[in-house]
């Protein structure tokens, strides 16, 4: 990305802007002043080790958690503290970590719930066909209670369900969790297609940093509740720290030494 492009981007108003966000679980502080910008039509990836607060950030944006401090604006409107259902109506779809399907509803009912806020019957049908097209196994199992699907099938369902609301901003929390390599490729192909063809903006949390950064335009690195690094996907892919800690491409595989190495944390 050229410097010029970057300039014009900064002029524009981001679709989603998070400023100085702080969030707590009881007395535990999980976000310590996080700020990110997500511009319309972009794919933004968030990287970070376990427990960094990625899921917490996603939940706070989509309203499942109320932030203690800070602001979240969506298309210029302050949305922090609102309930998730209101945000869905404003175009946010959140595919949560760990699938969270409705276990006693059938696959088809789950998908229908994804389109809960929509009224256009024909459009809903069409999108359902689209999801079935992406994940043929779901079509085959459309009358099976979602709770009895295999882990990966549930993940497909969760993603498909997220698509059903026709979001303008989609939050994907570890979409590739438990998917076969083939499907991981497919998921990211779908992400790219959504982004290119339907102009959906995506905020992505993903452990598979390689794939994530290949798909994303921009990336943030979150560590213990703080953003410690950000840059375009290319920049991050080129960064040594990222290469070592998120891509696993450090020189050599000298194990005994690594075994006892302390995890790198930025503070």
């Amino acid at each position, binding site marked *: 990305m050229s410097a010029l492009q970057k300039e014009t981007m900064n002029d524009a108003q981001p679709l989603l802007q998070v400023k100085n966000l702080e969030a707590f679980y009881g007395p535990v502080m999980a976000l310590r002043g996080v700020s990110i910008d997500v511009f319309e039509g972009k794919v933004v990836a968030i990287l970070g080790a376990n427990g960094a607060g990625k899921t917490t950030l996603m939940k706070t944006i*989509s*309203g*499942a958690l109320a932030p203690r401090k800070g602001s979240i604006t969506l298309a210029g409107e302050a949305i922090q503290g609102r*309930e*998730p*259902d209101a945000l*869905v*109506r404003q175009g946010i*779809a*959140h*595919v*949560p970590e760990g699938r*969270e*399907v*409705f*276990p*006693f*509803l059938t696959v088809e*009912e789950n998908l*229908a*719930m*994804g389109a*809960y*806020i929509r009224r256009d019957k024909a459009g809903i049908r069409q999108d359902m066909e689209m999801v079935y097209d992406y994940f043929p196994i779901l079509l085959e199992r459309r009358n099976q*209670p979602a*709770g*009895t*699907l*295999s882990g990966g099938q549930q993940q497909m369902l969760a993603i498909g*369900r*997220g698509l059903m*609301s026709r979001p303008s901003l989609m939050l994907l929390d570890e979409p590739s969790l438990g998917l076969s390599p083939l499907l991981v490729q497919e998921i990211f192909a779908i992400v790219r297609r959504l982004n290119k063809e339907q102009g959906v903006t995506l905020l992505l949390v993903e452990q598979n940093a390689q794939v994530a950064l290949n798909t994303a335009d921009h990336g943030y690195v979150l560590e213990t509740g703080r953003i410690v690094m950000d840059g375009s996907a290319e920049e991050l892919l080129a960064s040594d720290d990222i290469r070592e800690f998120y891509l696993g491409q450090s020189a050599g595989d000298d194990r005994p030494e690594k075994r006892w190495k302390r995890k790198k944390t930025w503070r």
Partner: protein
Amino acid sequence: MDILQLLVSGIANGCIYGLLALGFVLIYKASEAVNFAQGDMMMLGAFLGVTFINTSYADLPFLVGITLAALILGLFGYLLDRFVLRAIFGQPQFAMVILTIALGFLIRFVAGVIWGHDPTSLETPFIGLVWTVGELIIPVVDAVIIITTVALTAILYFFFARTRLGVAMQASSQNQMAAYYMGIPVKRINAIVWALSGVVAAIAGVMFAAKGAVEPSVGLLFGIKAFAAAVIGGLGSLPGALLGGLLVGIVEPFAGRYLPSGVGQIAPYVLMLLVLILRPGGLFAQISQKKV
């Protein structure tokens, strides 16, 4: 006395249990909460019916009275959820159990203050009317109760199975957070369901008062029996509630007739235990093993 006769009154009796059980099931289906004050809400409904319909009070036509009672109790259910139950949204199930138990006590108290503790009956247009079919005597009240219950069950059943809102209610009960992520206004849906169960409780109450007499304490134990009926049916199932209600209702008169006295009255509970021992999730269970 005729077995058929016992059956008729058992069915009518069971329908009232069924109606009340519907209220339990509604709330359970939409939030997996159990409303231990359901019986007391029914009692409120009965008193409201009495207030609107009886000559010594408002003296309104029967249908107007029942509608008013249903509306008021519906509103009550809505406000209850909005201002009391919402405070513990997302909290463990047994917080709700305790909350509704406490609510029941409060409702009984308030009813006692308003209507006193004397038993009161409803003056229905069909009081004392019976149809005679051969040997069989069918009180008109019973017929009305049976028709109302079956119709209400059918309507609610289709509402849950077929409508978007109905499915959304089930979704909210299965995973509140995911339901939220789908744009389902979970809290509002809870309020709606409480309102709905208020309406059902009012109808049950009016039917109850039409058949016998009410006083503030009837709700508690009648509620427990209806709860047993709902559980026999398998808490999540509306037709199950009706079936459970009928079973309890039918078992009672037959036990009263044929079992030694002092034993017959526990028959509904023994029946429930037997059903649960054979099918730990009730007749139409919706319990499954977790897929790991």
